[in-house]
C-alpha cells in the first residue's frame, strides 16, 4: 500500500510515494539518495540512523515514513554548509573521533541535538542534581547522553573529547 508524503530533508522539500512499510531511514537512503544516515541494526539498538526529526534526535529506523509526513529532517549532511563543516564535525575530525566512519553521522547529529537538550536544561540519569537549572557537561554526562550511539571501532574517548572541546572553546 502506497502513500504520497512530503518531507523537508536538510532544507529541501522532497515529495515521494512510499510503501506504508518504508521507514524514514529507508526513504532517505533508498528513495531520496540521502545516505548520510546509516543503517546499523534497523531496530533502534545502535543509533547509526540518528537524524533530527522536527528538531529532536530520533532513530529514523523506527519511524514509518508515512508517520513522518510533513516533518523536517536534518542529517549530518545537512549540518554542514557544503564544505563548511559544523563545529561538531570539525571537532570530530580534529580529535580523530571515528575510524571506519559508519556510526559517525549518527554520532554527530546526536551530539548536536544533545548540546541543545543540555542548553534546555534536560537532565540525565547521571546528573547529581536532577533539578539543576544549568547542565554542566562533564565527561560522564557527555558519555551517558551519547550512549545511544554505539561505535564498534570504539572511538568513545575521542568522541567525548571532541564534544567537550565544542562546549569549551
Amino acid at each position: 500500500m502506497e502513500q504520497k508524503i512530503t518531507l523537508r530533508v536538510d532544507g529541501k522539500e522532497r515529495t515521494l510515494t512510499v510503501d506504508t512499510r518504508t521507514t524514514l531511514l529507508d526513504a532517505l537512503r533508498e528513495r531520496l539518495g540521502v545516505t548520510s544516515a546509516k543503517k546499523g541494526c534497523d531496530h533502534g539498538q545502535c543509533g547509526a540512523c540518528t537524524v533530527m526529526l522536527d528538531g529532536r534526535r530520533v532513530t529514523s529506523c523506527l519511524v514509518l515514513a508515512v508517520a513522518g509526513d510533513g516533518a523536517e529532517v536534518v542529517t549530518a549532511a545537512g549540518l554542514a554548509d557544503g564544505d563548511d563543516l559544523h563545529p561538531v564535525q570539525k571537532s570530530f575530525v580534529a580529535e580523530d573521533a571515528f575510524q571506519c566512519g559508519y556510526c559517525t553521522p549518527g554520532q554527530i547529529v546526536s551530539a548536536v541535538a544533545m548540546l541543545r537538550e543540555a542548553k534546555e536544561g534536560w537532565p540525565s540519569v547521571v546528573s547529581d542534581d536532577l533539578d539543576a537549572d544549568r547542565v554542566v557537561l562533564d565527561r560522564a554526562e557527555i558519555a551517558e547522553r551519547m550512549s545511544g550511539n554505539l561505535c564498534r571501532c570504539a572511538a568513545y574517548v575521542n568522541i567525548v573529547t571532541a564534544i567537550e572541546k565544542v562546549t569549551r572553546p
Partner: protein
Amino acid sequence: MKPFAYQRAKDVESAVTTVAARPEASFLGGGTNLVDLMKMEVLKPELLVDVRHLVSRTIEPAHGGGLLIGAGMSNNELAADRRIRRRYPMLSQALLSGASYQLRNLATVGGNFLQRTRCPYFRDVTMPCNKREPGTGCAARDGVQRDLAVLGADASCVATHPSDMAVAMAALDAVLHTVGPSGERTIPVNELYRSPAEGPQRDTVLERGELITAVELPAAPVAAHSRYRKVRDRASYAFALVSVAAALEVRHGSVTQVRLALGGVAHKPWRATTAERALVGRPATEAGFRAAAEAELAAARPLAGNAFKVPLARNTIVSMLRDLTEGA
C-alpha cells in the same frame, strides 16, 4: 513487515471506533516497539491508526494535588518536566534510565506501559512462545534464562516486562485514563497487567480499541524523597536485570512511609507490598531493610540462569533504602 494500511485518525473517538472494529488494527504512537516488532513479524497489524497527534502532550494539575500527564508526551519531555523532577524524582530517573535519548524522544508515555517483553524467544518467530502464539509452549523456560522472571511467573510464560517508567508509576500508584469502545474509564497501573496464569498472550486488561489518553499521578509528598536505581549488564542503554523504585520517609528512626517497586523481575512492574508492610512502623535499620526485602522475595521461584536476581534484588533494595535513609 506484512503490508498494512495507515491512517491518521481525526479524533480520539474515531480512532477508538476504528481499532475496536478491526481485530488486525493497532494504534500507532511513537512506534519504537511496534515498528521494531513488525519488522520481525512478531506483530502483523493490517491497519495502523496513528494517534500520536491526537493525544495530549501536556501536564495539567489534577484534583487532590496530583498531576495529569498527557499520554502523548515523549518520555524525555516527561523526564525533563520540572514538576516531575522535583515532586517525583524516581519517575524522572526511571525514564532517563530507559533506552536512549533518541528512543525516548519518540516513545510516548502511553506506549511505554504497553511495551512487549524483550524475551528473546518471544522476539524470534521461529521459536515456540505462548505469549506470541498461544499453545505453542515456552521455549524460554529451559533456554537462555538470564533475563527471565523470578516473581509471578507461570509454567506457560516466564517473560519480564521491560519498562522502567512503569516501575516508578507502580510505586507512585499512578492511574491510567483510557477511552475505549465502552467509554472512558480509569485503571490503576497496579491493576493494568494480567498474570501470565490468566493467559500470557494478553499483557494487559485493556480492551481492543482502548486507548490510554492520560496518566494521573496522585499527590505523594513522600515521592519527593525517592530514587530509581537500575542494575544492568551495561552502564547505559540496556534493559534492567533488576531495578528498584523507592521512596522513603523516616521519622525518629522509624519508617513512616515507603513506596517500593521492582523492575526486571516479573511480567509487570512489581509493587513490593509485602516489603512495604514489613517496613512501615519499624526501625529504619539495615537489618530491617534486609528482612523486608527477603519477605518480598520469599515468593521468588528462580531458574538456574536467573537465580542471581534474587540476591541482587535484595541487595539493591537494601542499598536504596540505606541511601535514602542516609540522605534523609
